[in-house]
């Protein structure tokens, strides 16, 4: 049987001021298949898809849609050709309803001027039913969960008559259950004959859902393979260009005394709503305590409270028995608590500063980085050279501005700075968000090294596999509370996912007995 080709891109090249994002890329997709497009951050997958969707213009190359060459000069051309894109960052307008978000730009009308709200709602409900999306057309988008928001995006695309759907990293923000539901939706779309391009860097998902895979590396195509004829390891190798250790190798923990103890923490978020509702736990030297949870369940506020960036309303924080509740950020830093913040641009780096200067932030006010009232430039430079070497920050140039580094190297800069303070407690929040596999591997190794040196590590991550593979114990946070504690080896990702969604407590998942040293650890 000759299969119909939905899309063919030939020799696509796209240059940006500093990089060649796409270098002579060939890409093709058959009608009715789920085609995974994988590669590390910066490999050029999103750029390629933005060209296909008309958000970027190619410098050279050709695009054929159903065999006809097209010049896609804007998203509206792409939409008229039946191409729809669900962006990684949702393009939704929170105060508007689902129906309004869906029809925006192509509103059904009563007469020439007025919106036909009724028809809009009916259209959304029809699409929602057809593909099992279960979305309330009249709800305001701001009241929806992330998983539902994504479905609104999918409905938006379908409403515009899309036959070819581009999903840009759709699973990055979902819980395991939501991912499963998304995959079901993708399967039902495929059954209806839709073509799906699925951008991701999670190889497990590629193996589960896709029919074909195109791997990109450094702006070029590194391989095109049929999913059932390949393995995760082979794909990882294509992505990185060398063998990658997908599993984290770690020694059994050498646990010593309690480093940090927090009791009944309560705090409010930026909107003044209760974010922490009585959080208690202990971290011991030599262990990694992971905190799993869907984002927005109090993890951010917890980290901020522990690092002196948010006031606690109630509760007590002690470090080696010493009270540090609501201590200033500087005092906490001087108590040798290091912090890898969740948003490196907001809190981790001063983007316009050089690598060298970023590497001394937090130590900049005291010897050895100062000499009397002046900065000690010799010392600062030595410090930079040493850390750049030890943490393999590329390019190895201490003068370069941090904002011209890749995400992975920016993150390595933060890790280098924080670990150079010889912490006794490392608080790492989303330490590998948006960095490439190579850097993930490196950062994971560094975190494990700290643990093996006998430091305590608090790890918060939305990446379940990261929490599972690094942690010695995992606490699950849900709506500002710790709803359970599990041991990674004895728990499946799906059980953890259910706890994260508030559906199960750890009592139902497993009753972790063994040598429980912490009878006072709350299980909500």
């Amino acid at each position, binding site marked *: 049987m000759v299969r119909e080709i939905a899309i063919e891109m030939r020799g696509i090249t796209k240059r940006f001021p500093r990089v060649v994002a796409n270098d002579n890329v060939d890409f093709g997709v058959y009608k009715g298949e789920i085609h995974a497009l994988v590669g590390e951050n910066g490999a050029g997958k999103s750029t390629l898809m933005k060209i296909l969707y008309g*958000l970027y213009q190619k410098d050279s190359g050709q695009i054929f849609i159903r065999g006809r060459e097209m010049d896609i000069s*804007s*998203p*509206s051309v792409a*939409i008229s050709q039946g191409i729809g*894109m669900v*962006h990684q960052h949702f*393009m*939704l*307008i*929170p*105060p*508007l309803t689902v129906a*309004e*978000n869906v029809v*925006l*730009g*192509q*509103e059904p*009308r009563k007469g020439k*001027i*007025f*919106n036909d709200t009724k028809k809009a709602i009916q259209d959304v409900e029809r699409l929602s039913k057809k593909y099992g999306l279960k979305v309330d057309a009249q709800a305001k988008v701001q009241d929806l969960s992330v998983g539902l928001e994504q479905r609104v995006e999918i409905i*938006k695309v379908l409403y515009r008559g899309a036959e070819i759907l581009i999903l840009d990293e759709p699973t990055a923000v979902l819980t395991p259950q939501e991912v499963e539901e998304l995959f079901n939706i993708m399967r039902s779309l495929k059954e209806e004959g839709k073509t799906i391009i699925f951008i991701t860097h999670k190889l497990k998902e590629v193996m589960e859902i896709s029919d074909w895979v195109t791997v990109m590396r450094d702006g070029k195509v590194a391989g095109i393979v049929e999913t059932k004829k390949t393995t995760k390891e082979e794909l990882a190798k294509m992505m990185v260009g060398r063998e990658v250790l997908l599993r984290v190798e770690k020694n059994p923990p050498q646990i010593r005394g309690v480093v940090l103890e927090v009791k009944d923490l309560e705090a409010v978020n930026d909107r003044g709503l209760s974010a922490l509702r009585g959080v208690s736990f202990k971290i011991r030297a030599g262990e990694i305590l992971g905190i799993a949870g869907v984002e927005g369940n109090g993890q951010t506020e917890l980290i901020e409270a522990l690092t002196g960036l948010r006031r606690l309303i109630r509760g007590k924080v002690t470090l080696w028995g010493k009270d540090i509740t609501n201590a200033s950020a500087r005092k906490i830093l001087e108590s040798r608590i290091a912090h890898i913040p969740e948003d490196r641009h907001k809190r981790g780096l001063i983007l316009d500063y050089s690598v060298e200067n970023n590497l001394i932030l937090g130590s900049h006010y005291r010897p050895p980085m100062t000499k009397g009232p002046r900065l000690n430039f010799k010392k600062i430079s030595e410090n930079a050279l040493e850390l750049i070497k030890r943490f393999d920050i590329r390019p190895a140039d201490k003068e370069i501005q941090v904002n011209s580094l890749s995400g992975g190297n920016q993150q390595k800069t933060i890790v280098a700075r924080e670990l150079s303070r010889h912490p006794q407690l490392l608080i790492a929040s989303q330490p590998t968000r948006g960095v490439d596999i190579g850097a993930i591997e490196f950062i994971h190794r560094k975190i494990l090294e700290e643990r093996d040196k006998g430091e305590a590590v608090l790890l918060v991550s939305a990446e379940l596999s990261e929490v599972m593979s690094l942690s010695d114990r995992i606490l699950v946070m849900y709506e500002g509370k710790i709803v359970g504690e599990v041991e990674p080896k004895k728990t499946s990702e799906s059980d953890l996912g259910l706890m994260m969604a508030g559906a199960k407590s750890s009592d139902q998942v497993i009753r972790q007995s063994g040598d429980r040293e912490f009878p006072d650890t709350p299980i909500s």
Partner: protein
Amino acid sequence: MWQSVFSLVMVTLTIKISIPYILAAIGGTFSERGGVINIGLEGMILNGAFCAVLATWYTGNAWAGVVAAVIGGVLTALIHAVVSIRYKADQIISGVAINLFAIGITKFILKMVFHSSSNSERVVGLPFWKIPVINKVPVIDTIFSTPLILLTLIIIVASHIIIFKTSFGLRLRSCGEHPQAADTLGVKVNLMRYAGVLISGGLAGLGGAWLSLDQHQFTDGMSGGRGFIALAAMIFGKWTPLGATGAALLFGFAEALQIQLQSAGVKIPTQFIQMIPYLLTIIVLTSAIGRAVPPAADGKPYEK
């Protein structure tokens, strides 16, 4: 004294004072719903007021003045639009510049045409419409016999419908909330923003026409901070035409109260009585500010 405060005179006075506030506040609503902050309302009112008198002076027809005021407001707004949409300049600075520009240009032309630095010659005003039956009912009579009040009434209702019931309104609001999202759906963000700002200029200009034609002359700086009070009304009205109208009426009432109290000879120093509208504005804004959520992309230039 209380008689004079709670009288029909007071109601008509409140309405008359509120008209420029209502028009400019609804104008501001259009602009900010599209994502462009319009501090320049003040200047647009002033230019509108001046254009109204100028055109009426030359033509002898106050209706020509009204049209000129709207055009003057739109042209002033066009400067703001080009600077802040096309050149993505800071919208606050652009707005302030427009206010200063309006003070200067009106004074300059005032001197050139009327050879006075304080006020213009007197011009004719708009006619009063005598409508049978209705003209026997107080208040209602004022509304229906004064063309601009009637027009304002229509504008209030029409604005509500345009912003909340039409595709144009939906698109305009989407540009003020999340222009990137609107763009990906093929909404022409810049076009919508131009529309919002120009409409705001037209309405503010109309408010200016009311001011000068009501007094049959232009006096230097006659906008007197009304653009800023209108901005406060827009915020207090949560960026909706009906809310802005309500807030404008409240501010209008405070000003009417101030006038009535002064003429009733209350034994409070006039300076304090004159503070009433402004104090009220401050109190209302501080109590409303927590709840009033502006359009998310208000004031942010859109870059792809």
